């Protein structure tokens, strides 16, 4: 059976028509299943764990990056694949990276059921699919005991598993989410003069790092806040996921 996890923000009235249209399309494609609406009293973890025990065939996150993050933290390590239906344009970078461009195309992609196994990042106890980011001011990156990295210019530190549109890596450098490696990207900018801004990028392939910062928090998948210090590592082939043909890897 398919399990649809609707995020709590979809309880707003303005999404009513869109959801009705979505449900009609899902029924037309023969993908219908149980719908669970998250709210303050009902969390994703408990619901998904119960449904996995009952033999769920697919878990489908309906919402944005935050919904996906909540679902992968319950689904990691399971053989049951994750499907995603993005709602709205904001905070939906993960679906775009996976080749799922809109709510309408997501239904067709679910129907085509192209499943691949991806790595997941783990920051302390929380999984992330796409990236972790933090302001580089006051950030100390502990790569391993051999060397340290310092930067004086302003910018952001990212740890990517799945490339998001937030950054454009130098031509030809590929981010592959099933290669057993994470990509540490330090993106800095400096003002050459009042008009000209220069961006610099540094990229390191890593398996494990610790990020320290006394002032700022880390953001997981663009939506979940996590206090530093954080031990970040890769967990290989941890999630089955339904993807589109236009994915960026």
């Amino acid at each position, binding site marked *: 059976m398919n399990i649809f996890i609707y995020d709590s923000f979809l309880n707003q009235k303005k999404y009513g028509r869109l959801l009705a249209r979505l449900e009609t399309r899902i029924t037309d494609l023969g993908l219908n299943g149980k719908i669970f609406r998250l709210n303050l009293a009902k969390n994703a973890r408990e619901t998904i764990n119960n449904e996995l025990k009952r033999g769920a065939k697919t878990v489908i996150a309906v919402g944005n990056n935050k919904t996906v993050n909540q679902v992968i933290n319950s689904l990691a390590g399971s053989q049951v694949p994750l499907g995603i239906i993005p709602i709205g344009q904001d905070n939906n970078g993960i679906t775009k990276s996976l080749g799922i461009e809109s709510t309408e195309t997501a239904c067709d992609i679910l129907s085509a059921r192209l499943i691949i196994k991806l790595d997941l990042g783990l920051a302390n106890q929380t999984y992330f699919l796409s990236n972790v980011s933090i302001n580089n001011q006051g950030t100390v990156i502990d790569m391993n005991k*051999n*060397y*340290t*990295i*310092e*930067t*004086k*210019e302003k*910018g952001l530190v990212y740890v990517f598993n799945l490339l998001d549109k937030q950054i454009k890596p*130098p*031509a*030809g*450098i590929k981010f592959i989410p099933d290669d057993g490696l994470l990509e540490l990207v*330090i993106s*800095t900018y*400096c003002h050459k003069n009042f008009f000209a801004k220069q961006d*610099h*990028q*540094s*990229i*390191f*392939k890593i398996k494990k790092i610790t990020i320290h910062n006394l002032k700022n928090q880390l953001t997981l998948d663009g939506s979940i806040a996590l206090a530093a210090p954080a031990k970040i590592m890769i967990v290989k082939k941890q999630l089955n996921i339904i993807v589109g043909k236009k994915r960026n890897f």
Partner: protein
Amino acid sequence: MFKKQDQTEILNEFETVIGPSIKVKGDFNGQGNIIVEGKVEGNLKTNGNLEVGKTAIITANIEAKQAKIGGQISGNVKIKGFLEITATAKIFGDIETSGLSIERGAIFNGKCVMTAVAEEVKKIDKNI
């Protein structure tokens, strides 16, 4: 036109990029190809190729498979294959390589040992 194609081919293979705003301190051991445009202090070692940009300042001993150097290096350079030193390069240290090209304008202060030739000399000595 041909030069552009060559550059993309090189970039395709790189795994680590140390940008101009970054300073790496310590022993950096890479597996793949590396581009350095920032500062490195310590040791820099890779099994792959190394490209040192003109903004790079390296105070370290370097080991790589092949290298193209356009920045400043204070330390010894040991390259298994071919070493290309471009016009903007400043190298203060010894070089050990099996193939070498130095462009006009480059600064090199140090000794240079060509490993392939050194091995041949050893063989001749043994025969004698």
